């Protein structure tokens, strides 16, 4: 390293900053486009205004969209976290024959094109004769999101000391007490991150929703339909809302995790 690092490190910083700006150009464009009071987007904007924000939030159609998207994301989060928590224990906590195979199977849906998965589920639902609705969408999201959440929680499980469970059991706790008093609280940060991921991934998902919601419509689907035909500045308004919403939720979650972890890390520092 040595002398080279002196000029290389600023370059790395500069490059990361450039790419970050690149990542946020679209969000910025959406924000700008939403702040016009004219029907079409012409830049530079001549007539600024928040008329389209008001219009969008007053629309009953939009309220229904929010309800659908939130219902899907909430149901999905609950089910995904329960399934993934068990999955993460099997993935990282216990040694058992077939674990390596299990780990690979869990990864398969993640390493699979989502649009094809969406179509396959459409075929499957129709073969089963199911009516498509937001409930089938929950299931479709689950196939992709539960494995992701399993990985997120598994990372926390890897750092879990199995002796904690044995110690509690040895001190007289029943299996349920061990789980409630030790396993769950110690793994909680992982479960929390997992839930956050589950909610946000479902909230922003398009390819799986497209083929699985039937008559119900989620926000990404609605936006896509409007983009292809019938642009109004309501599109950037909703786009901005969902970007900012995701950012706020993630930042708050991140700060909560940091707070929890910092109190533990400070302890560790004091100890040495």
């Amino acid at each position, binding site marked *: 390293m040595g002398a080279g690092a002196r000029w290389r490190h600023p370059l790395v910083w500069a490059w990361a900053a450039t*790419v970050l700006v690149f990542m946020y150009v*679209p969000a910025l*464009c959406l924000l700008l486009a939403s702040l016009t009071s004219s029907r079409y987007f012409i830049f530079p904007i001549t007539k600024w205004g928040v008329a389209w924000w008001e219009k969008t939030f007053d629309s009953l159609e939009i309220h229904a969209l929010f309800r659908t998207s939130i219902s899907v994301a909430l149901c999905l989060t609950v089910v995904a976290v329960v399934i993934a928590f068990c999955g993460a224990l099997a993935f990282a906590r*216990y040694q058992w024959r077939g674990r390596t195979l299990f780990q690979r199977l869990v990864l398969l849906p993640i390493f*699979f*094109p989502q649009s*094809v998965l969406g179509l396959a589920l459409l075929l499957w639902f129709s073969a089963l004769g199911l009516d498509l609705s937001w409930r089938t969408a929950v299931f479709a999201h689950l196939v992709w999101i539960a494995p992701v959440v399993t990985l997120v929680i598994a990372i926390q499980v890897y750092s879990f000391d199995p002796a904690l469970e044995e110690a509690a059991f040895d001190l007289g706790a029943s299996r349920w007490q061990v789980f409630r008093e030790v396993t769950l609280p110690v793994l909680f940060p992982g479960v929390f991150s997992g839930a956050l991921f589950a909610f946000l991934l479902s909230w922003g998902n*398009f390819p799986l929703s497209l083929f699985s919601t039937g008559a119900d419509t989620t926000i*990404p689907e609605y936006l896509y339909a409007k983009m292809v035909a019938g642009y109004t500045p309501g599109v950037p308004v909703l786009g901005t809302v969902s970007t900012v919403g995701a950012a706020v939720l993630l930042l708050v979650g991140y700060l909560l995790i940091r707070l929890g972890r910092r109190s533990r890390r400070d302890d560790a520092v004091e100890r040495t």
Partner: protein
Amino acid sequence: MAAGSRAPGPRFALPVLGLLLVGFAAPLLAVIGYSFMPERTFGLWQEPTLDNYASVFSGTSYISFLWSLALASATVTVLALVCYPIAYGLARVFGRWSPLITLLFTIPLFVSENVRLYGWVLFFIKGGVLLGTLKSVFGIEIESWLFTRGIILLGMVYVYLPFMLFPMTLGVAMVPHETSEAAADLGASRWQVFREVELPLSMPGIVIGFLLTFVLAVGAIVEAKVLGGQQIIPITHDIEIAFTYAQNWPLGAALAVLLMVVVGVLVIGVLRRFDLDAVLGRR
């Protein structure tokens, strides 16, 4: 846990395995089943036939297939070059800023990709943020780049960047700092340290990043639609058309099966070489 709890591993694996069986394996089998059905049928219990596969290769779909593969390869190549310095920075340079920077790269992941791509449309469109600024500030008028192949590639690079960046960062973080220093101490140049030590040791993360972005990019559909006009027709578009407008499920299924084969061979071939405990569980 302890005596009495026989084999908790398989028991805890059960819910996920059940989900994968009903929600992943079964649908894929249904697709495979449909791909052998006669044209334009909607049931699964007809006489099996290979006609759909024959028509895939006699039609134009194979061109879409090649486009998808080419586009995915290009995406992976560009992403590798864009992401490595950032992954290096996150693992080695940014220090206490790393978590925050990681977070900033994560946020876009949770916004629907079509919304984000639409932001680029607003940027590049005639009278949009870029051309509008050029015209009003500098008086320059140029053709919009929207609906060109380059823009599709930009969109794909943009959408899949986090999927390359995060596994890569895990990979780079797996290289112990001392090994780089030891190599330098033994007389290796910066380039030699990278080639002989850092690159091989961070390979697991890098390969997973390559695989993930390639697979997702092969299945990409929105980029070409939102940004590309009709410049490139990816295979997923053909599949969707077959399922929707053309109402020819068996043909769509045959196309999907071919895509699944390519993806499956790649994924299984690569993943079987990995010790996932080593990549994920750095205790």
